[in-house]
């Protein structure tokens, strides 16, 4: 008998994990290029758009429960210190105040390695106490009554000061993460450098960027008996459930996590948040529903961020452009905690090169913990690598696109395995064509003009193949309406629509007859976090299997009613048709005859193929205008060509591409968290001072897919879409600026003052 449980590799956010997977009951033929599909691949409207345009979509902050209390958080105003006095009593005595949390009240609960409310201040704006009251206003006002005394301690807010000889201890065991330096190496770097005709050495710097989701982190918790329901703005309901259950020593079945709609995640909402722990604890203590939602300053200062990096890069090549050596030495300040996202992976994976060495040093600093942020690691790495590639191209007097083509990687060299599919060449060709790359490159420059134009490009790769475990149930109701149930999340990505399209395709149903239900741990089967661009490729195959099972049951029932065999039946637009007799029945007619019989199909996601890298690829091209007097950069247009396997819904997928490019544009030109150098306090914690792109900043965007199903990756042929588009934007823009001015950029964001300094120099 075949084994029921096997292991497989799954890559998420650049990390590869081994997962146990239960083999699905069936393994359908992959939908290849020639598959005749009617709903999958169609530009269907977003299925939850109606709720969103009418204001009816219920986000976490919109949950209002009878008797609900509100939490306000007291935050630290130094970057490091010890709390010597913390007395809530004067605050608790205020009318309308119902309770609070202070040092020692969440013993044993940690977030990013930090014990909550532990009496130590590790970074500015860290929450040190919570007040819970009848209204938010009362709670906020009562915060001022808290008696607090803090003994400030020396702090280190950047990598350089944390690594200095006389640096204060940021963490008891030292200021670098124990994995540092994390080194990867293949071939012989020295030999590669000796082999080269041209070698360039450069340093690149990237800023701390803030997710700035419009809906902040937040949760509402309500206990009933010994069970708690938590509404949380989260990318992972099951992760959140596990975190809460562990923290409060509850069985998983006593925690229900709900997330219907969320106002953006971008990587920062992957488990129980500080707000959730606080709301659950206070709700248990006070036996009332409790809401804890970060205010904007809390969100901008204490809700995760993209790490800054310093990347020292060496690229070496022969005269013909063949790369002979790549070396990276990167320093990455994490803040007080986080995980080790890797800028190095771009360097070791993007191009063919026999001799590669990367080294990453992860540093703890007295700043808020980092979090995954849309393509963590690759975004930062791409800026360094792709900027350096253009410098190399200049040294070689070669078209930057040609240099990239000459170093095309035909397999995953780091782990010596094949790609399930790779159509980056197609992205280069079609992207360059639609951009008019050759024409734009050869255009004559007017060196005397105040405004210079330039063009640049960059390559993209990202492990977006998804994987198990993921489960789905498809139910056909007595009236023929269909529900797809899966514990995934729709962050605004379109997962609801995509899952319904897959189910409708298999069932031969009208899309409007299908509804996807997501985001409830109590009622839905497991699906993993919606992160790493994995949801379509992870959950989609499970939905397909569940829908096939449901379709088979439906056909069996219908066959009896139509006096034929199930294999004589086909369905389209919610109607079952017998090929032999031309008789047909609507789904509704079949189901009404079945009475209260509920047709239920179960599906799960099978293992990934062994020894195979599942990647999405892309190429981005940008044209900019630079005012040489002010240093102001305006992006005129971006062309973005992507290989993400089959595209289930081109409209929604293009929306994600545009969104990624626009976030990338902000990263390239505006976005940078700024801390006061002396005190370590945040200086731009508002949406006015931390600048994200507005509608007026958006260039002409032509974003598209080569749309070739990846039948090796999984049987839907789809891979991830969300993260790749942000990877290439900053380097493409920086390269365009270099093309315009002949001046290397080296550091983002490319603000007018930064660029004006370089032009002047």
């Amino acid at each position, binding site marked *: 008998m075949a084994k029921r449980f096997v292991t497989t590799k799954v890559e998420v956010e650049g990390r590869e994990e081994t997962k146990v997977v239960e083999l699905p009951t069936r393994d359908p033929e992959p939908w290849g290029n020639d598959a005749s599909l009617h709903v999958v691949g169609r530009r269907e409207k977003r299925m939850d758009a109606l709720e969103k*345009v009418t*204001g009816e979509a219920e986000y976490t902050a919109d949950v209002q429960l009878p008797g609900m209390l509100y939490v306000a958080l007291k935050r630290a105003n130094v970057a490091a210190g010890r709390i010597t006095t913390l007395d809530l009593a004067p605050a608790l005595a205020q009318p309308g105040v119902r309770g609070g949390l202070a040092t020692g009240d969440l013993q044993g609960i940690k977030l990013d390695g930090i014990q909550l409310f532990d009496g130590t201040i590790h970074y500015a704006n860290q929450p040190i106490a919570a007040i819970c009251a009848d209204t938010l206003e009362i709670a906020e006002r009562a915060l001022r009554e808290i008696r607090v005394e803090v003994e400030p301690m020396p702090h280190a807010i950047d990598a350089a000061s944390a690594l200095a000889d006389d640096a204060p201890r940021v963490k008891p065991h030292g200021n670098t993460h124990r994995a540092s330096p994390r080194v990867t190496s293949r071939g012989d770097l020295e030999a590669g450098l000796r082999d080269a005709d041209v070698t360039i050495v450069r340093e690149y710097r990237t800023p701390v960027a803030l997710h700035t989701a419009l809906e902040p982190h937040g949760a509402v918790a309500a206990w009933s008996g010994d069970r708690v329901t938590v509404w949380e703005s989260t990318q992972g309901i099951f992760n959140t459930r596990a975190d809460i259950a562990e923290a409060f020593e509850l069985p998983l079945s006593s925690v229900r996590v709900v997330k219907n709609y969320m*106002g953006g995640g971008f990587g920062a909402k992957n488990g129980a948040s500080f707000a959730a722990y606080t709301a659950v604890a206070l709700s248990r203590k006070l036996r009332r529903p409790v809401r804890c939602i970060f205010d904007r300053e809390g969100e901008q200062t204490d809700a995760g961020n993209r790490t800054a990096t310093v990347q020292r890069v060496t690229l070496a090549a022969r005269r013909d452009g063949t790369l002979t050596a790549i070396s990276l030495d990167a320093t990455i300040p994490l803040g007080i905690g986080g995980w080790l996202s890797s800028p190095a992976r771009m360097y070791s994976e993007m191009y063919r090169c026999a001799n590669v060495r990367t080294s990453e040093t992860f540093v703890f600093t007295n700043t808020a913990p980092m979090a995954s942020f849309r393509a963590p690691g690759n975004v930062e790495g791409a800026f360094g690598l792709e900027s350096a590639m253009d410098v190399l191209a200049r040294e070689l007097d070669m078209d930057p696109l040609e240099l990239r083509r000459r170093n095309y990687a035909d397999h995953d060299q780091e782990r010596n395995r094949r790609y399930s599919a790779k159509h980056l060449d197609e992205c280069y060709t079609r992207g360059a064509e639609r951009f008019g790359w050759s024409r734009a490159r050869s255009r004559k420059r007017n060196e005397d003009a105040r405004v210079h134009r330039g063009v640049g490009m960059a390559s993209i790769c990202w492990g977006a193949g998804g994987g198990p475990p993921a489960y789905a149930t498809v139910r056909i109701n007595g009236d023929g309406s269909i529900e797809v149930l899966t514990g995934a999340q729709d962050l605004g990505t379109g997962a609801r629509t995509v899952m319904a399209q897959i189910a409708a395709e298999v069932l031969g149903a009208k899309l409007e007859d299908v509804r996807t239900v997501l985001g409830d741990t109590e009622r839905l089967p497991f699906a993993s976090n919606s992160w790493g661009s994995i949801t379509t490729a992870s959950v989609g195959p499970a939905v397909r299997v569940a829908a096939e099972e449901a379709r088979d049951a439906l056909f069996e029932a219908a066959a009896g009613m139509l006096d034929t065999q199930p294999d004589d039946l086909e369905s389209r637009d919610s109607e079952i048709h017998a090929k032999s007799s031309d008789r047909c029945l609507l789904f509704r007619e079949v189901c009404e005859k079945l009475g209260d019989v509920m047709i239920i199909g179960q599906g799960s996601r099978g293992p990934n193929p062994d020894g195979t890298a599942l990647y999405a690829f892309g190429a981005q091209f940008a044209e900019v205008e630079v005012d040489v007097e002010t240093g102001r950069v305006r992006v005129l247009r971006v062309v973005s060509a992507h290989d993400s396997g089959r595209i289930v819904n081109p*409209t929604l997928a293009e929306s994600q591409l*545009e969104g990624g490019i626009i976030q990338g544009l902000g990263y390239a030109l505006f976005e940078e968290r700024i801390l006061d150098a002396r005190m370590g306090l945040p200086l731009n914690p508002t949406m006015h001072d931390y600048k994200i792109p507005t509608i007026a900043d958006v260039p002409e965007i032509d974003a598209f897919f080569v749309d070739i199903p990846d039948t090796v990756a999984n049987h839907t042929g789809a891979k991830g879409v969300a993260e790749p588009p942000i990877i290439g934007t900053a380097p493409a823009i920086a390269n365009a600026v270099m093309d315009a001015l002949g001046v290397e950029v080296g550091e983002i964001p490319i603000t007018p003052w930064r660029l004006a300094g370089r032009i002047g120099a």
Partner: protein
Amino acid sequence: MRLIVNGASHEVAAPDHERLLTTLRERLHLTGTKLVCGRGECGACTVLVDGAPAYSCLTLTAACDGREIATIEGLARDGELHPVQQAFVEHDALQCGFCTPGQILAAVALLDRQPHPTEDDVRRGMSGNLCRCGAYPKIVRAVLAAAEGADAHG
């Protein structure tokens, strides 16, 4: 004091310092209007006061006594979406949807002032409404389409 919200009259006993956003969300349970920055920087809380767009986070409820307030909940009439809402759906001018109510009301106000906007007018008119998902290109298309549609039906 009396607020006329989406055509219905409400007696509200809001203190003088209460902002309209709080009154709408917490007293009238109209949660379609979103709190994002709370200080007039993002536009997510945009409502119409006597037809003009206003950041409800910077508007005192006390200043709205007797005035007509339109929120996202009141835009559709008799189950029929407003043309701007319809255009947002048609053109996929939203992703997570959190900024959408504010975007739509800003667009309604813009088209009221400027029934025939150019693309530049739309970019300027909508630049006070931030969207982090980056639905901007499709918001531009949706607003222009709503303007054209109004012409076609007009």
